[in-house]
């Protein structure tokens, strides 16, 4: 008895089948296109960002200089080259009115408002030159001095914005053009930007203070977060018993990684400043606060990396009589190091760009001196950018962009080191 009928054999060439195949190919193509579109879009955004930053910021690394002939011999400086030798030199220099000298020289060269063309701090350069070579006092010398903000701004030519429409600026632009034709002004690489720190005068500001502050803060963050993060990951993955407590710790760590960074700032304020009375605005406090933020990221990445070491490698090591610590330090850690480093890069990059928690622990202070140590008042690059972007003086605009370029360069350098380390330790099996 047969109660089943043979089904008709599948027609692989039927119209419906062909249609299905075509639809499948179309879907494939569409999907590929979506991916390509997403990649191109993000590449476009990135390119736009970089082009804007670099075109704005490149000027931040340069400065406008104006030629000022200074006639020392005819001046009333009351300073002899002979008095600049020996012990009294510093005192003699300090007592001389270089500021007045430079203002007088500018007036002489460019008319009654000549001093407005020169940066108020430009005389420092003249004093330095005299200190280096006292013989200058006997003659006349032309200095390329830093131009004032107004002249520097005029050198940018036509720009949009309310500031640009003001008649003073129009006049200054005309003047700049005349000076340029007479070869009395030039643009040169700024000696100040990379070595100076914050200042209220945009022609004098520099990034060094913030850069050093960031560097010190990152050292503290790395020194705290990396060992604690890796050791926590190792303990949780290799030694911790599986019970309610470790489950709770695991959930807490995962949540910590997602906590908004400003909360960590409040925590740092409450714990490090108010309870432990650590110095305000110091890289050590900033570093500790950022370490709290970075640690969970390193723990999570570390645990995943340790988990992904094949059990056969552990078996092999145990099988020749390695102790658990030897298995860990000879095999598991070296093999998971690339993954741990990847997590560390992500965490540290985030920490480097972090502003909010540092504002709360006082790192938004106006710090003129670069920090000498971990407990000196300091600011960091992103906070410095935030502060400068808030300034009204138009001279800060290009300096802000230049600071952003510096921050990006710092970030790239940091990542490059980490990637180099990761590739060095990468093992394949």
């Amino acid at each position, binding site marked *: 008895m047969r109660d089943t009928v043979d089904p008709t054999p599948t027609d692989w060439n039927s119209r419906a089948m062909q249609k299905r195949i075509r639809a499948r190919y179309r879907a494939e193509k569409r999907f590929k296109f979506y991916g390509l579109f997403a990649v191109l879009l993000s590449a476009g955004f990135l390119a736009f960002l970089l082009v804007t930053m670099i075109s704005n910021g490149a000027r931040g690394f340069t400065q406008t200089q104006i030629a000022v002939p200074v006639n020392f011999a005819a001046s009333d400086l009351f300073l002899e080259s002979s008095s600049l030798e020996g012990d009294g030199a510093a005192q003699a220099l300090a007592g001389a009115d270089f500021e007045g000298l430079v203002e007088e020289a500018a007036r002489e060269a460019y008319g009654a408002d000549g001093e407005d063309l020169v940066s108020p701090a430009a005389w420092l350069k003249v004093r330095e030159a005299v200190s280096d070579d006292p013989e200058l006092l006997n003659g006349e010398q032309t200095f390329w001095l830093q131009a004032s903000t107004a002249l520097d701004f005029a050198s940018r030519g036509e720009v949009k914005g309310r500031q640009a429409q003001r008649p003073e600026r129009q006049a200054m632009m005309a003047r700049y053009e005349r000076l340029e034709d007479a070869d009395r002004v030039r643009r040169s690489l700024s000696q100040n930007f990379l070595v100076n720190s914050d200042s209220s005068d945009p022609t004098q500001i520099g990034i060094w203070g913030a850069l050093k502050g960031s560097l010190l803060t990152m050292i503290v963050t790395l020194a705290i977060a990396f060992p604690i993060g890796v050791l926590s990951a190792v303990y949780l993955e290799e030694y911790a018993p599986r019970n309610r407590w470790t489950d709770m710790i695991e959930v807490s760590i995962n949540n910590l990684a997602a906590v908004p960074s400003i909360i960590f700032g409040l925590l740092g304020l409450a714990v490090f400043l108010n309870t432990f009375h650590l110095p305000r605005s110091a890289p050590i406090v900033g570093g500790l606060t950022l370490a709290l933020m970075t640690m969970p990221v390193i723990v999570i990445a570390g645990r995943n990396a340790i988990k992904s070491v094949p059990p056969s*490698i552990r*078996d092999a090591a*145990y099988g*020749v*009589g390695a102790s658990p610590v030897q298995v860990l330090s000879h095999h598991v850690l070296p093999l998971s190091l690339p993954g741990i480093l990847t997590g560390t890069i992500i965490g540290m990059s985030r920490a480097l760009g972090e502003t909010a928690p540092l504002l709360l622990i006082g790192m938004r202070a106006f710090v003129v001196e670069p920090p000498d140590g971990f407990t000196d008042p300091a600011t960091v690059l992103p906070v410095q950018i935030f502060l400068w972007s808030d300034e009204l003086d138009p001279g800060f605009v290009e300096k802000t962009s230049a600071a952003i370029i510096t921050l990006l360069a710092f970030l790239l350098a940091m990542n490059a080191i980490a990637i180099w380390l990761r590739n060095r330790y990468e093992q394949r099996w």
Partner: protein
Amino acid sequence: MTQTALTQIAEKRNAVEVDTPKMTARNVDVFYGAAQAIDDVSIDIGMENVTAFIGPSGCGKSTFLRCLNRMNDTIPIARVTGDIRLDGKDVYDSSMDVVQLRARVGMVFQKPNPFPKSIFENVAYGARIHGLASSKAEMDEIVERSLKRAGLWDEVKDRLPDSGTALSGGQQQRLCIARAIAVDPEVILMDEPCSALDPIATAKIEELIHELRGRYAIVIVTHNMQQAARVSQRTAFFHLGTLVEYGDTSELFTNPHEERTKDYITGRYG
């Protein structure tokens, strides 16, 4: 208890013993959590012999093998009871150093698992952590001797700094054997060492086992009954966590006492 039952027990006792036991196991039970994987196994491992453990999948032969050098310690839920001795000394005793035990009772695994390091480093690793070589020359000698005994020296002597994972599967497995030999063990446990290898590589490993016999007590777990018949002198048949029969290989394959053994070796199940 009847007289016959007593004799049967006596016979069974006799059967598990060998003349020169290197390792002895008595009444061993293994639990994974609540599940019992090994039920009351008693067996002797002879010094002069290659001992084969055969049986269908999941019968506990690998689990039992891993008890002999306490590799089950690395599994948190595993629990071992009973008495396992190496040269008369209880391996589960607190005075037994598990690191030294695993050096004395080496292990070769089912899947070749060389470290992702150089060939030299693979062999030298065990000797190094146990401090067996006091100089570079001595270490070179240990590596050369171990690779020679594992029959791999001629193939790799010019490429010792190359990665161990770059070798072929069969070479990798012989490298793992060399690695186990390098720490100068007394017993070598092999957990299906040929299951991932092709017939030619398998033949080489079997040949190697022949050569190593006598120097080391060897226990090999295998799925392959022909392999057990070829390489071993004693064979133990495991089924559902119990030791069903243990005897001379020739005897067990030609004239099995137990019905289940007969069914298995004739291919009725497994």
